[in-house]
């Protein structure tokens, strides 16, 4: 049982970090970023190239992943999403754009990095084995790093000037604009930060699970799940959703093992029941 909980916590920490980026973009722009999983994959491949191929330190690789994705995110907001939001009659149109960018990233990743599964050398060797819990050290490092990033993100959103502006924007776009918040600028920063988070998680996880060009879509779906559980556009909700999904996956894989591969079926069914009782997730704003 301790093992299951430890696994759940480890999964939850990384899931929460993925969901945070998605929910940030959603809160600021009302855009459901279909390309989030692809951004994750791109981050993974960048870390693979810098750390695994070029042999530079892991920290540098992680930084490269984060910065590259932040730049990509900023450009996407400035040249794609902002334009479409301005010109379109219905704001759902951004979903087509998001889906198209997801396909585009898929194509780029496939062309640049091929379809092979890629992995990198372990960052820390050895396995922790105590009190009935077995966990490789590198997983613990990644889990702790993920939690550190989450904490840093929450503190940044809470206390920095930029964070305050973005929270105002998420609360009421028009009011924030009237109060003198530069909406365009902070939308761009927010999009860049969301993309950066995806890239950083990709970089972190490539050291454990590796990465291949096909996992972008499934990662996006998982991120959607977490955001729905917690409530779209709420930072606390994304974190809660991430840990809940991680825990459910970990418990489900153990408990439902004898029934075959039904863990996700059960999770999906539970989610639909949950959402019909509580349509806004745990702490979502109504009708996000």
């Amino acid at each position, binding site marked *: 049982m301790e093992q299951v909980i430890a696994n759940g916590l480890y999964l939850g920490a990384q899931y929460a970090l993925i969901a945070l980026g998605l929910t940030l973009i959603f809160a600021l722009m009302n855009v459901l970023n279909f390309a989030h999983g692809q951004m994750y994959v791109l981050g993974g491949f960048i870390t693979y190239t810098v750390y695994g191929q070029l042999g530079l330190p892991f920290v540098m690789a992680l930084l490269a992943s984060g910065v590259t994705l932040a730049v990509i995110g900023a450009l996407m907001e400035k040249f794609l999403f902002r334009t479409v939001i301005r010109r*379109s*009659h219905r704001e759902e149109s951004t979903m087509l754009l998001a889906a*198209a960018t997801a396909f585009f990233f898929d*194509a*780029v990743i496939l062309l640049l990095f091929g379809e092979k599964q890629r992995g990198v050398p372990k960052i820390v060797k050895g396995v922790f084995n105590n009190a009935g819990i077995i966990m490789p050290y590198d997983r613990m490092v990644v889990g702790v790093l993920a939690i550190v990033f989450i904490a840093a993100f929450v503190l940044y959103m809470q206390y920095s000037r930029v964070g305050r502006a973005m929270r105002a924007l998420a609360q009421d776009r028009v009011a924030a604009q009237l109060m003198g918040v530069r909406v365009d600028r902070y939308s761009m920063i927010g999009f860049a930060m969301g993309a950066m988070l995806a890239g950083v998680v990709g970089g972190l996880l490539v050291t454990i699970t590796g990465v291949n060009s096909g996992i972008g879509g499934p990662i996006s779906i998982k991120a*959607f799940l977490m955001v729905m559980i917690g409530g779209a556009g709420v930072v606390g909700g994304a974190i809660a959703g991430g840990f809940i999904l991680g825990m459910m996956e970990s418990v489900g894989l153990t408990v439902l093992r004898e029934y075959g591969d039904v863990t996700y079926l059960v999770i*999906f069914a539970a989610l639909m029941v949950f959402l019909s009782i509580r349509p806004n997730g745990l702490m979502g704003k109504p009708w*996000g």
Partner: protein
Amino acid sequence: MTRNRNMKIASVAAFLAIVFIAVPAAISASGRFDLYYTLTSVALLSIASAGVWLTFYIGRINIGQGAYALMGGYVSAILVMNYGWSFWLTLPVAGLFCAAASVLIGLPILRLRGVYFAMVTLVLTEVARLLALALPITNGAKGIVSIPLPGALSVFGLIIIPDFATLQNSRLAFYLLAVTLMVVCFGVMYRLVNSRIGKLCQSLQQNEELASSIGVNIAYLRIIAYAVSSFFGGVAGAIFAAISQSIYPSSFTVTDSVNFMLNCFLGGLGYVFGPMLGTLVLYFGWDLLFQTGQFQLLIYSGLMIVLMLVLPNGLLSLAASIRKKA
């Protein structure tokens, strides 16, 4: 008014002439019989997309049409294979089964809005795939294969539709079937949108609370629209299973659901015939780009992004803006 009406009748007649006479004639003249399959797929996919469009019309983003297409395909396949039903009987049954299922599923989830509804329907597609993998009757990942071609349909001894297996050119038969259904489907859609219910649905799209406050039964309308939408999805899926003579859990996946949605966006959410045009352009665009090999997806998605930037309200908005200028 009468001129407008005559214009409409003329354009419908022209469209019917093109799809039923001109296209088969052109294909048999050029000998490109593979185009039948492509066009049949376009017709069927546009039926499913029409369903998605209808849910857009009530202000819901539906990424779950793949689930109903898969369900319809399986219902038809299982009834034909395990119970020996005629394909023609399974077609409406598959549609009705999906509509009934969508009422059950829709009752709770249609209360959701915006991205919540979008994401739940996305999850629904995954649920359908996983269910098809897990249930005993669907035969797991192996799917149901070698489904017989549709048999003859006769009423009072009069053969209306001949047995597809005895036909020399079953591709043409499938093409005619799919196109006929497409015409019927879009006829129904057009009628629905321009009826009282259509206007009420539009009020849902704009403001549900307001519509509800002046006495529109919003829960009932939502369910009706969603059920019709799923009916279309089920019928399209059932014919697809019959054409490919097989169905697998991966026959309709999240990608298909997303594509149905994209067809609607591309054609234009404000136009009934948007999904038809969108499906045609997207499907043919993808096919034409096949020659570019590994760059296919790159060019395709790049073009889609450009289209979105230039025409965010769909292809048909171009025609509307030209008309406005004229």
